């Protein structure tokens, strides 16, 4: 019983001395809430994109209308895939820049990332218009619906990413992005890379696999 008593005393003492300083990142896991949250979100996105990709795989042989082989322009898509891939590089350089406190380069790299992303989207829009002209409308076949929904959905993700990047540039220009908020950039970066990773998957599975 005496044992128990002392245990209780020490508990009380511990409560009282529990530090109450405001230290960021001082979490149980050592990872900030926002970053952990972003990774959780990305994990759940795997299931969302997985569903759409699965649907595409199931429906990629149309009963009528153009087939994937007939319609895809691999050299073109390869180029735009390459553009998106390189945007990951500029993104990571941006994160590296802000951690170094180099705000000038931060803005340059983020701007470059957004630009590359926009190029990719432009390419996608162009690709879509070509496909439609060649007779692959959204409602043409099961393949067309699945294809446009999957890639369009990915495109929406990229577009959201571009908007976030632009917002970062604005924030940075107004001086609202100091180094201690570099994590914001990193987290937008995580999202951006994830969208890229999804495209890596789509490029291989949708475009290259015959």
């Amino acid at each position, binding site marked *: 019983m005496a044992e128990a008593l002392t*245990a209780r005393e020490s508990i009380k003492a511990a409560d009282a001395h529990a530090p109450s300083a*405001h230290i*960021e990142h001082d*979490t149980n896991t050592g990872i900030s809430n926002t970053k*952990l949250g972003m990774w959780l979100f990305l994990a759940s996105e795997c299931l969302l994109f997985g569903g759409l990709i699965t649907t595409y795989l199931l429906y990629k042989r149309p009963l009528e209308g153009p087939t994937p082989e007939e319609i895809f322009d691999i050299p073109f898509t390869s180029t735009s895939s390459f553009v998106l891939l390189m945007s990951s590089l500029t993104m990571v350089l941006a994160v590296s820049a802000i951690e170094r406190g180099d705000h000038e380069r931060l803005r340059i790299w983020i701007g470059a990332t957004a630009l590359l992303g926009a190029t990719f989207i432009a390419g996608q829009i162009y690709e879509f218009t070509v496909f439609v002209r060649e007779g692959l409308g959204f409602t043409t076949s099961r393949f067309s619906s699945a294809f446009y929904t999957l890639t369009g959905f990915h495109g929406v993700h990229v577009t959201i990413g571009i908007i976030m990047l632009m917002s970062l540039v604005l924030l940075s220009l107004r001086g609202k992005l100091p*180094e*201690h908020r570099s*994590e914001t950039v990193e987290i937008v970066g995580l999202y951006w890379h994830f969208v890229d990773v999804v495209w890596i998957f789509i490029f291989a599975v949708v475009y290259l696999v015959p």
Partner: protein
Amino acid sequence: MALTESRPLALTSGDVDTVYKPAGVFTRPKSGATGWKSWLTTVDHKKIGIMYGAAAIFFFVIGGIEALLIRVQLWAPRGTLLSANLYNQVFTMHGTTMIFLVVMPIGAAFANYLMPLQIGARDVAYPRINAFSFWAFLFGGVFLNSSWLLGGGADGGWFNYAPNNGVIFSPTNGIDFWNLGLIITGVASLAGAVNLIVTVLNMRAPGMTLMKMPIFTWMTLVTQFLLLFAIPVLTAAQILLMMDRLFDANFFNVAKGANPLLWQHLFWIFGHPEVYLMILPAFGIVSEILPTFARKPIFGYPFIVFSGIAIGFMGWGVWAHHMFVSGIGPITVTTFALTTMFIAVPTGVKILNWVATMWGGKLQFTSPMLFSIGLVTMFTIGGLSGVTHSVAPADTQQTDTYYIVAHFHYVLFGGAFFGFMAGFYFYWPKVFGYLLNEKLGKANFWLMLLGFNLTFAPMHILGLQGMSRRIYTYDAGYGFEVWNKVATIGAFILASSIALFIFNMFYSKSKAKNLPAPGADPWDARTIEWMIPSPTPEYNFDPIPTVSRVDDFWYRKYGETKDGKLVRIAATDDVVQKLSDGKHIHLPSPSYWPIVLAFGMPIAAYGLIFNMWLCLVGGIIIVGGLYGWVLEPPDDPEASHDDDGTDTHASDGGDAAVTEISGSVDQPNELDPAKEAETVG
């Protein structure tokens, strides 16, 4: 290697944001306000929890009235209360409402209110996102139900199989409402899941390792992981359906080679984890209540925890048991039959451990305890009928009959809902500062047990004797008359027991003035949420307790000798925390933006159905809301304090302000405290 980092990626640079002084709407509402307005802008997890509960009970009455309509229609052969069309809408909306707008949000209510208290946190990780989740759920639910006034509800059943959910077969807008409404509530659930998982992982009180967390918190964690991964699957399916219904895509157009089973797979990949995420919160609640009133620790804490995790895992590998007769082939059928059966093992561990918890105890039959025992027995009935479904050949006789209806009401009502009722009675004093009347509570229990069994037990026989589900009428001569009558009578008894519960809320409140306040710990309970005053003060804990074992609060009151004898070592009054003014505690400020942002979603959804211009309006509200959200200053400047200058560091609106709880426990924190102190100073 240059990339190895010994420090976190984000540097604490030592500079301070100048406090942003925005004008007009960008000012955050004042914290500490009261009145109805404070509820609209609150980011307090407790208020949000209460609102979840209140909204869910409101929807429960709607769903319940729909259930009563079903039961009256089926009272006798060739019922004439509802037309076939109306009946189909009513049972679809009944199932949808009960699942998405009642059981899930009640789980969210308990998780929101209790989990931060159980882990000793000030709030959840992202208080504003939490508020957003609630409003999105509420608006999604209202949107869904607004279909009744705008051309009729959905009529495809709650699992809404393709191609019957297509425009050709369901030309009204009902299914569009169903689809878009559930996408909105899905967004709410997903945001909530991220939020609560981060909270559990990151914001536990010092000393609380994962294996010292209360079981309810554990079950919340598992539940939220299930949501995190299950909701996107449903959303994917719903996106396909939306494309089909609104933009003529071919995902479920058989003429263009679509396979209707695609919908079934996606729906049930979501749907089965869904049923477990509906039951696990209730399991968590009774795991708190049974030890409290048995005056004994939970039997086999690690087994209970791991079986919960196991249920979460296995729940992903059984979905096709809903499709045994849909033509998936004998190999798939066999596989899924076997995986399904063995899910009974971890569930059984829980049931038997609960019985063992009671064994040798000194049981106090309070209302929460009665409802908990109700769960243990009634869920077992439902679980066992579940096992009889998992025997695939037998299921070909049972599926889509009332035998299934019996199964899932036993697990959902007899399991989840009994658990929630136990939770209501147990936590009511903590939340509202007065106890619910025990006498009424017990009457409530017995009446509910009676009504529940009268309603749903006969459905076993109805099903085995061939009554199909989802039929608005049946004929005389099939032998269905008697048991349908019993079920209908039961449903009204059940309704009266719910009415009694609602009455009890108000009756006990009016009587509470003349009774002594329940105090922090009315039940002599075990976990730390009972350490703080009732009703919970806004700041939760002051100071944050340091946790040293499971049932920490209990062991502040009692010590255990070596031979398992329990002795009191401190008076409860000395252990519980006193109400403090909480002035020095920094709480996130309220915000307008969560409700604004959430409001944009149903508007956009109406737009998709009726007029694309409305979509634009909704889109503008959403985008505007997002910008308001992001640009909103971290805090109500006037409420900031000067105890230390780092308050305004809160980098992402109010959401980081709660990271102040310190202590990194089960994962050794790699931060070097000395360096940290240096850079901060």
